[in-house]
């Protein structure tokens, strides 16, 4: 929408696409202008994944065995770390309240924010995961499956995490409370995500796990934006 059409009517009509695009571009711009936070999450992911071989010993067979699971847990924790930033800043300075007053439907800009969050946190982890997998000595097929599982799974983590962080807006005991809310809900994603790569490593087909992850993603995409909006409304009440 250009400036002329926006100012033509008394109130510019909101639509899902414009709301999504607007908040997606805004949050992504913010992430690019403050690259530190995004890089911090990536650095955390790489660092924690590198700690495991030092802790459990550098036996190549053991590392190849635990690799997919460790990478998934690290991705989970990294995604969890970046969650509070999703709504907290906008909630604190009143932006969130202004956004609910915008003509765009609430799920549109909320989805845009979550998509931007995923692009800034989940996507880099997915892209980096083959590199970490190489550190663990995973074979190429497993690396591919792991990346595919992360590609399907990390958006679910972003959506579930967004719902939890919206619920916990303004709550006492922030980080620990968020962990208690979000991590149990992440468990199914972890099981199927790590299961896909482990099935591949064991010579089985990862397709069932990946299909379940995709089904979970579709379900999360359909249902969770509405839950997130309900949570934001509760927070702003």
């Amino acid at each position, binding site marked *: 929408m250009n400036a002329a059409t926006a100012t033509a009517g008394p109130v510019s009509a909101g639509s899902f696409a414009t709301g999504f695009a607007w908040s997606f571009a805004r949050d992504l711009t913010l992430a690019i202008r403050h690259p530190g936070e995004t890089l911090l999450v990536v650095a955390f992911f790489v660092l924690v994944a590198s700690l495991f071989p030092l802790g459990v010993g550098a036996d190549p067979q053991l590392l190849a065995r635990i690799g997919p699971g460790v990478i998934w847990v690290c991705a989970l924790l990294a995604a969890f770390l970046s969650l509070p930033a999703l709504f907290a800043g906008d909630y604190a300075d009143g932006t969130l309240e202004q956004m609910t007053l915008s003509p765009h439907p609430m799920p549109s800009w909320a989805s845009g924010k979550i998509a931007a969050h995923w692009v800034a946190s989940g996507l880099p982890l997915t892209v980096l995961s083959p590199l970490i997998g190489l550190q663990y000595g995973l074979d190429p097929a497993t690396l591919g499956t792991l990346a595919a599982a992360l590609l399907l799974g990390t958006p679910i983590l972003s959506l579930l995490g967004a*719902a*939890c962080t919206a*619920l*916990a807006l*303004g*709550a*006492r*005991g922030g980080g620990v*409370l968020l962990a*208690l*809310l979000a*991590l*149990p*809900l992440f*468990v*199914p994603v972890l*099981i199927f995500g790590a299961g896909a790569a482990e099935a591949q490593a064991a010579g089985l087909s990862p397709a069932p796990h990946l299909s379940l992850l995709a089904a979970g993603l579709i379900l999360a995409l359909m249902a969770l934006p509405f*839950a997130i909006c*309900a*949570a934001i409304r*509760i*927070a702003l*009440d």
Partner: protein
Amino acid sequence: MNFYYFSSPATFYRLAGTMAPFFFAAALATGIAGLYMGFVVAPTDAQQGEVYRVIFIHVPAAWMSMFAYFVMACYGAISLTFNTRLAAMMARAIAPTGAMFTFVALWTGSFWGRPTWGTYWVWDARITSELVLLFLYLGFIALANAFEDPRRGDRAAALLAIIGVVNLPIIYFSVQWWNTLHQGSSVSFKGTSMHVAMLWAMLLMAISFWMYTIGAALVRCRTIILERERRAQWVRAMT
């Protein structure tokens, strides 16, 4: 009589006070009968020996843990849709009892698992999802109490409970979906693979746990009502 009469905390407070003792009495009566049936009448299991008798606590507690969560989520949904205060209070009141039964189910299961499976704990689908249920309960309780404004806690926790309902079918069907260590159900509507006395003992214990849960929820709800309404006329008039 008006159906909504008891949706006011003041009237429900009295009703709950009258009803709770009856539920506790029923829980005690069916509990004693169930334990007698389970530990005296029911025969020793041919394969497992005496240790199988843990199921008379374990299975009803596991049923109750799931059902209490479902009821809690329903109360949460009612409180969100109709913006009622009492439903949210009931949801809060059920949560600790549900968490307790979840813990009991896990604990008794691990005691049963040691002699029969040879291990206290396995990362089996049903056990893991029951553990997740315990964390969901704890998350609900933590979130409900994390806000200065109790109504904000009510709403946030209600929404969390509704999101967490996804876990219930996973627990329930886990023994069919994943063929892992935890055995399938022995009880179904089409008939059972159990001795009649065992079945009766289990059903009596299940009824006892139900009655206990309702009674405990009512008593806890009364406390919550008093705490919330402490500035109301009718509460002040009581003291």
